[in-house]
């Protein structure tokens, strides 16, 4: 799909997410964790660690990574890939900020519901 023609869903204000923190967006196919880094980038991925299902939105955000609260797996927010010695990945949802609003890519959200 061409990036310019993507549909985006507004989920709230950037200010609703604490810096170096996360919030959850509920969807019929499970929660999406939306992260905000120290320099105000936002990233979104499934709120479920592939290791034992830990809710990543509750992890500590550092740099462009998050550490799972259950067993300390670390994931790159941009790629969803596990870092270090662990292997695995989390499905990401494209996210961006426009005029202070946080937007999620509709096709990514929809693909989660149907897959």
């Amino acid at each position: 799909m061409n990036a310019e023609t993507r549909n985006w869903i507004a989920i709230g204000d950037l200010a609703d997410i604490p810096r170096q923190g996360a919030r959850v967006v509920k969807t019929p196919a499970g929660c999406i964790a939306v992260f905000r880094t120290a320099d105000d980038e936002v990233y979104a991925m499934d709120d479920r660690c592939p290791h034992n299902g830990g809710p990543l939105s509750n992890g500590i955000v550092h740099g462009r990574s998050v550490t799972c609260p259950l067993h300390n797996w670390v994931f790159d927010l941009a790629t969803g890939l596990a870092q270090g010695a662990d292997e695995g990945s989390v499905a990401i949802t494209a996210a961006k900020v426009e005029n202070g609003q946080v937007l999620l890519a509709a096709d990514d959200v929809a693909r989660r519901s149907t897959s």
Partner: protein
Amino acid sequence: MHARGLDGWHVTVLTEETHLPYDRVALSKALTDADVDLTLGIASMWDHDALSLQTGERVTGIDTEGKTVTTAAGTVYPYDELVVATGSDAARLPIPGSELTHVYRTLEDVWAINKAITDLTEKLGRKVNAVTIGGGLLGLESAAGTEQLGATPVVINGSPWLMNTQLDEGAGQALGRLIEAKGFTVHGGVFPSEVLSDDDGQVTGVLMADGRIIDADLVIVAIGVKPRDELFRAANGEAAEDTAPLFDLGPRGGVVISDGCETQVPGIWAIGEVANFGGMCLGLVAPANTMAEIVADRLHGGGATFPGFDTATKLKLSGVDVASFGDAFARTEHALEIVYADPARGVYQKIVTTDDAKTLLGGIFVGDATPYTSLRPMLGRELAAEPGAYLTAAGGVAGDEVLHTELPDDAILCSCNNVSAGTIRDTVNGCGACEGNPPVRELGDLKGCTRAGTSCGSCVPMLKKLLETELTKSGVEVSKALCEHIAFSRQELFDAIRVLELDSFEKIMARYGTGDGCDICKPTIANILASQHSAYVLDAGRGTLQDTNDRALANMQKDGTYSVVPRIAGGEITPQKLGVIAAVAEQYGLYTKITGGQRIDMLGIRKEDLPAVWADLGEVGFVSGHAYAKGLRTVKTCVGSDWCRFGTQDSTGLGIKLEKFMWGSWTPAKLKLAVSGCPRNCAEATCKDIGIVCVDSGYEIHYAGAAGLDIKGTEVLGIVKTEEEVLEHVCALTQMHREQGHYLERIYKWAKRIGYEEIRAQIMDDADKRKAYFDRFVFSQKYAQVDPWSERVSGKDKHEFNPMATLMAEAAE
């Protein structure tokens, strides 16, 4: 194969089981918890283009000429290389009634056992008599599982002592005594002859060869396994009669393999329990993994050979440590056995050496397996000290240092992934495993680079020691830095923050750190700030520094829900408060449980419901029990002199006084206290971080106990005469630990590092120092005792608990 690269390969895995491959070694977990997930690796690894997994596909035939396999469904899969890893089946007993017994082999087997025990317990209305036939590794594991499920465990063992494949008679007897003390009944040296049942087919007992009948409601047979070699047998059967069989089979089954793990038919490999090497098949995971590595290496053009079975075993049975390795039975000619046996304590330790007492050949440990981890890599090597020095139960003191510094290069450190000490040294010194990369300096990098310590993790402490030894040797200063962002240790940072009165994460990072911080330095700094200024840990944007438990003020459980524990000082509770706990638990469908610290845990709360739960609890005066905190948890008490005929002081009153004075304080690690009213010690004060034992003449102050990963009795700090003195000494000790302890370092570890003499000198003998610590503690408490739950009930940090948005299905379309 995946690790070595899949270029040019397509790997198909066929399994008759309907599950993803799972960790059979951990089957006992599934016995006691039917929901546990034992899947090996992660499901998404099968998404790889060159890998495919077919579950529920049982292979029924191999065509060695046409190079295909056929499945029960009739599908034909061609192959270039075929690896057979069919494992084995549980052996059944050839006696009447055998069809009524369970076996212990697959997930379905353990689920069936779990269900049978649950159903029988309900039907019979009493404890179920669960008889396990077989006193080997699997039998004992199964019996331990039935005990955890609430059944009465009985073991029938044909051989005279338990685990006779791994243990000699002395060790087997010691193990028998230890588990009998835990409520197991063991019938040894006798065989069963019939499983008895009533008219409905319900098992009633086991008739023994000697005529005795042993009561049984459920019988599990765990007498061993037989290799699943039927595919090879079938292939042999099809060959013309006058030709030699295609595959050599062992006398007791299993297909014979070469040291390259290949069968007689080129291109057909066999690994694991179905593979017969050197005349035996073995049901242990480490050799099976080694064989898999060898086949993968050979398929990639390598020449790896199987070194023979590593029969080393270490396990914990109902809390009893058992380990055996090498030539445990001293079968080597002239071998010496150095044995320490203490039947009273239930400890048996044995080391087997060559006749000059120098070279290590094997060993057995029951009851205390401390030396196993260090000794095992030394197998076949010269010991640095006399063998007796390694028998820790006999007071042997051969330290880990001796072992690690001279661990030879080819000694295997990580047996799961077959990594030698030499590989670790090469990696640390930058000339081996990762060519062209800079030398490794961090444990995490070392694990990532060599894969050592990434499976079972039992070698990680040795790995760390070896890393530090190597770094020190090469002149690199072993860093005490907190993490890559902070060059100071926690204590240095604690002092600096106090002296400069820094009060925010940003100020501290600007002065002493680099970058934004990480999951190590952020919670550590938040904890220091909390325990110094008692500026609350979550205030001023500090929330994102914290672990989820500290942020949500509750304990995350494995399914992502939370538990809360309200404070119930001294275990004293009113009927009204009990009623509210009951009502809240019913409303939210919570599981409730009395904790070991005399409180009530409420589990299974969804995060967004936490504030509502706290609101209900808060109405009758409950405040947070800080069960999530690196801070004061609970002060456990017995009833004391008000009621008890042995009580010497008011232990309940003193416990409540301590808890009310100290709650809300943040410490480097959790802090658990107890007050016992007399030396009979019903509150178990002598294994707590700080414990008080009341005596006629006053109060004995104990500290530095542990009853977790480590078990350690307390040290005595001293005796004081009044409750006020207890309070001052205890708070001063807490403050000293707070200022000096590493993050997550409990008092017993800190005290060992600092020295008991030093602590006694500062807290007992130096009144000025003690007073100064106490005053600093009291100062920080001024700000600490605000109930964090009630603040959240009134709307603080709402974002932490509520979803940001809820998307319906149509929103995305």
